[in-house]
């Protein structure tokens, strides 16, 4: 037999491992910094949500009235002029510019977003910033690990589950950092994200680890770059959407309880109070899922084209194909639910979580437990 075309470069593979382990250490530090952020933040007593929902601060006049005459919000932003004066809170700029007044649709709770994990405390905020800086550092290390892995085998670093997993969390953290850089309100995601990334990496290095190596012939194709990269990207971003949906469910339960006049437990109020409002979380989750859905559609189609080239049929109901289809239909279901009266809100969020559960099962369950043509996971 002829020798291998490209022998794995052991050195680079070793470097990749070191980088991944270092990133885990730094993620761990970020995790503790986030914990500190939440702990210091718990000392603040803002309770804006309760005020908004129970009329404590003279806000909207409670539920029944809100439906008939919804509260009006003034956007302090003023007007964005093209000269870039932007959202100066200053009064001079606003005086001679028209103000845009927005109002929410009937029947929605008008609740301000929570103050964030730091709860407005200086110390909490400091730890939050430290956590984000550490997360960014860990991201660079992890991304370096993925690249070194790719260089060591001179191919796309997506040939087995270990490689999928490290790329998966890299992309999720990258997406989070990009959203932060775009000044989106996503700091609340930090702790959950870092925790799950540690979990993902832990599973990857202990159970899924595979030495860096060449690919089986079926994977020798440029479709690997297209199909697998989009699949990983979709999964990572769907994860962020699912995290939003879970928090939405908690926060919504909390708001509903307050609106009914109940008193949530102390821990729940302390944590949930600081999250964005249920409305914001719901919208966040929807936007993420809706934005990724077309890409997921593309991923499946690209996979079908590849299957057509590699196996002679573009769709054969292989377990992996079945579950991609189920995931796709479940997300479509979610999008429809959002457009259907009586299905919005919590029911839609459950569908989103079902859809994400399908995705996760398609990754772990199908790769490990069910055998099919896609059994090259290297486990």
């Amino acid at each position: 037999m002829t020798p291998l075309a490209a022998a794995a470069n052991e050195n680079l593979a070793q470097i990749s491992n070191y980088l991944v382990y270092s990133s885990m250490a730094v993620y761990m530090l970020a995790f503790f910094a986030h914990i500190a952020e939440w702990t210091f933040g718990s000392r603040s007593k803002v309770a804006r949500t309760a005020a908004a929902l129970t009329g404590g601060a003279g806000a909207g006049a409670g539920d029944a009235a809100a439906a008939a005459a919804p509260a009006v919000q003034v956007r302090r932003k003023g007007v964005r002029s093209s000269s870039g004066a932007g959202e100066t809170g200053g009064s001079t700029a606003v005086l001679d510019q028209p103000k845009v007044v927005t109002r929410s649709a009937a029947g929605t709770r008008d609740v301000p977003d929570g103050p964030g994990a730091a709860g407005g405390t200086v110390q909490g905020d400091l730890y939050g910033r430290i956590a984000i800086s550490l997360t960014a550092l860990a991201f660079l290390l992890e991304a370096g690990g993925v690249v070194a892995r790719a260089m060591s085998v001179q191919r796309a670093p997506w040939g087995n589950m270990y490689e999928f997993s490290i790329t998966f969390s890299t992309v999720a953290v990258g997406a989070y950092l990009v959203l932060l850089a775009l000044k989106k309100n996503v700091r609340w995601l930090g702790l959950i994200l870092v925790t799950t990334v540690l979990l993902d990496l832990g599973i990857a290095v202990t159970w899924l680890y595979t030495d860096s190596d060449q690919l089986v012939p079926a994977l020798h194709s440029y479709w690997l770059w297209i199909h697998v990269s989009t699949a990983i990207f979709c999964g990572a971003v769907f994860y962020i959407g699912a995290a939003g949906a879970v928090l939405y469910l908690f926060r919504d339960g909390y708001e509903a309880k307050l609106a009914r006049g109940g008193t949530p437990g102390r821990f729940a109020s302390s944590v949930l109070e600081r999250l964005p409002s249920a409305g914001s979380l719901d919208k966040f989750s929807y936007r993420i899922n809706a934005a990724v859905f077309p890409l997921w559609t593309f991923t499946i189609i690209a996979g079908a084209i590849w299957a057509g080239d590699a196996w002679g049929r573009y769709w054969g109901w292989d377990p992996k194909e079945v579950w991609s289809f189920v995931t796709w239909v479940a997300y479509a279901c979610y999008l429809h639910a959002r457009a259907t009266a009586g299905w919005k809100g919590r029911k839609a969020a459950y569908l989103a979580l079902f859809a994400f559960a399908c995705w996760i099962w398609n990754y772990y369950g199908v790769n490990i437990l069910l055998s099919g043509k896609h059994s090259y996971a290297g486990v």
Partner: protein
Amino acid sequence: MSKTDNAPTGTDNAPTGADAEAEPVLGAAGAQLSTAPVEDSGPVGIGVLGWARWFWRQLTSMRVALILLFLLSLAAIPGSLIPQTSVDAMKVAAWKKDNPSWVGIAEKLQLFDVYSSFWFSAVYLLLFISLIGCILPRSWQFAGQLRGRPPAAPKRLDRLPAHTTWRTDRTPDEVLAHAKTLLGGRRFRTESGENHVAAEKGYLREAGNLIFHVALIVMLVAFAWGQYFKSEGGKLVLRGKGFSNTLTQYDDFKYGALFDPQDLPPFSFTLDRFDATYEETGPQKGTPRDFTAYVTFSDGAHGKPQKREIQVNKPLKVDGSKVYLLGHGYAPVISVTDPAGTVVYKDAVPMLPQDANLTSRGAIKVTDGYRNKNGEKEQLGFSAQFVPTFAGKGQGTMLSQFPAANFPVIALNAFHGSLGVDSGLPQNVYQLDTSKMQQFKKENGDPFAQMLLPGETMTLPDGAGTVKFEGIERWATFSVTHQPGSGLALAGAIAAIAGLAGSLFIQRRRIWVRAVPGKDGVTVVEMAGLGRSESAKLPEELAELAATLHRQAPTAPPAVSAEPVEETPEGERG
């Protein structure tokens, strides 16, 4: 909308139907912002026709479409858990053996053919009908909307989701003229009304949505077409041997209900060489790295021979058909002599791989020409186990250690009698039917079996002849598929993605600008926006437009009176 205590709705808070009840202010201004069907739970008519109409309305409603979609995703699941005949018939047989008590139920429920089962078909047919029933009226409605004009401004613009107002010295006509050019320049469709300009944009959202759903139908049709007209044949080709594309040449052939064998494109090829490389070391030792089949190919009945390569991901494309390289294996060359020493059989016998290291099994069947010691016609059969890399003497088992032919060994069990090939029943070429055969016995009465290295010969007991392991050939299996409709399916898929992007990323929204002379003779400008969804982008866009218009109609000095009253401002968001 029955529940108003529900969480804030997201992007799809269509102010139609019941929503419009909650805000009667909007009236026509909020109507027809989408073509989503209105949920109707209206009373049932009388008689069969009434029921039929009710059923149709239900089937084409969003709620039922939603339930059907959900059912479809659930219905697809069992097929991934239970082996499917269409995917792997061997696994189905194994499953049946392991779960004998479930076979009856499973077969009744068509659990081995989930994707062609009656219940799976029922769900997707209903979905298909629901889809069509929804698309047709929506397309119709949308065509109407495209011809229509943006609706007139509602009476109170300050009730809309985003609103702004200021006073200016310009005349109302000037302001409205500016507004119209401004909005027109931003590709809004505009319509002048009394004291106001109405504008609308983002029709592509609805168009995209309709395109997406139509594309789904196109894809379903393409799949169905492919199912009916497809053909797929498998052929094992030994190195040095050829294949020509006619029905009789195939080892197995499957085709759709409407396929015509005359449609097979004429071509032929010879397998010149087959190369396989494997991982030689490390934990993944033995994993295949590269397979290539080198063929001499002739297109058409008398085409010019050309050299081609077929690889796993690179099929050979011929006139709508594709030739794929599927598998490969070994074919030991075996010769058999009769008691007189005449060679009665010599052939390369393909063996069926059993594992990743190509431990293989097969059968050698000497059907003609053999006469035993007594001169009687008889048939010989050998069940064979072949390993390309033997573990070594004393390691016992016939399990290959590596897929390449590094230390090939064949083990043979020898039988004589009748192979049963004349019985008319189709026979598995890899298996020996020993029901009418006796195994050769050693002198001590033990069954006769022997291992051979290439070049070695074994002598059958009682001078019954000899068997020689002459050498090793390779074979490769090819699958020739013809799948019409895949082009159409691809076109549908691309349209689906494009439509989806339009449907999800484009906002449909309306903007109104009203300018009326105020009491003090100064013009009051009001701008308001309404989207299908409550999105942060709409206020931003309105603010941007207002700022631009404001430059042409700046705020009048606040000499006379205060600004128009605003409703209680309070709180802050974001």
